[in-house]
């Protein structure tokens, strides 16, 4: 199952609505990097509202997405991380420190614009 990636001006928008298995997480990583490359997008918002489990593998994939996108000149913001998911991540021992987050898609877009203007 591929995760749809939408383009809006210079940004890419992704809402993860499916249960992420390892395979689809890896495919998503690849698809997103290709799309950044092909579209020249400068920012990406990834909405995680529907994601109920982020384990160490998925956390690593998401963290890698941020670093890889950064190398390609695109800033990533995560939105909608559920409280239960963020608590679980910390207890698991995973700190996504470098990763900007925002409450929802709208706030995510605002944050992206701010981050990009600071450059």
């Amino acid at each position, binding site marked *: 199952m591929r995760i749809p990636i939408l383009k809006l001006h210079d940004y890419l928008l992704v809402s993860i609505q499916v249960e992420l298995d390892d*395979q689809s997480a890896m495919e998503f990583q690849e698809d997103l990097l290709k799309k950044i490359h092909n579209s020249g997008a400068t920012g990406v918002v990834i909405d995680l509202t529907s994601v109920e489990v982020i384990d160490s593998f998925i956390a690593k994939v998401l963290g890698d997405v941020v670093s890889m996108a950064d190398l390609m000149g695109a800033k990533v913001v995560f939105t909608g991380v559920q409280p239960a998911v963020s608590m679980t991540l910390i207890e698991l*021992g995973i700190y996504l420190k470098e990763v900007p987050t925002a409450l929802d898609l709208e706030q995510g877009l605002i944050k992206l614009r701010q981050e990009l203007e600071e450059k």
Partner: protein
Amino acid sequence: MNETLSSVPIRKEWDIVGARQTGRNWAKDLGFGSVDQARIATAISELARNIYLYAKVGEINFERLDSVPSIGLKITARDQGPGIKEVSKVMKDGYSTSGGLGAGLPGVKRLMDEFDIESTDAGTVVTVIKWTRI
């Protein structure tokens, strides 16, 4: 009193998702709140992935523990793989032989209330329990 709820075989990658969904459903049934459901599902995901990656096949068992005043969900991850050579090393944060974040087993221990691991060259059994809050 222990009651077996179900058992999920781990053979292919998708079974990791299947096991954590089954576990979350049992957690919901037993009355765990949403944060505990996430803790339980995440712990199962780590244990099931370890089976898939390091032992290839195994199974995850779910049991209900009736105690007073709370109810427990007991999860047993069992495989006949090569086992873990140095369990004490593995239980330290930051240890991984697979390039992972190394939060796996120590993380599982933090997410659950009880944790036990037994590993020999004939296989590994990890047993964890979460109790409902009263």
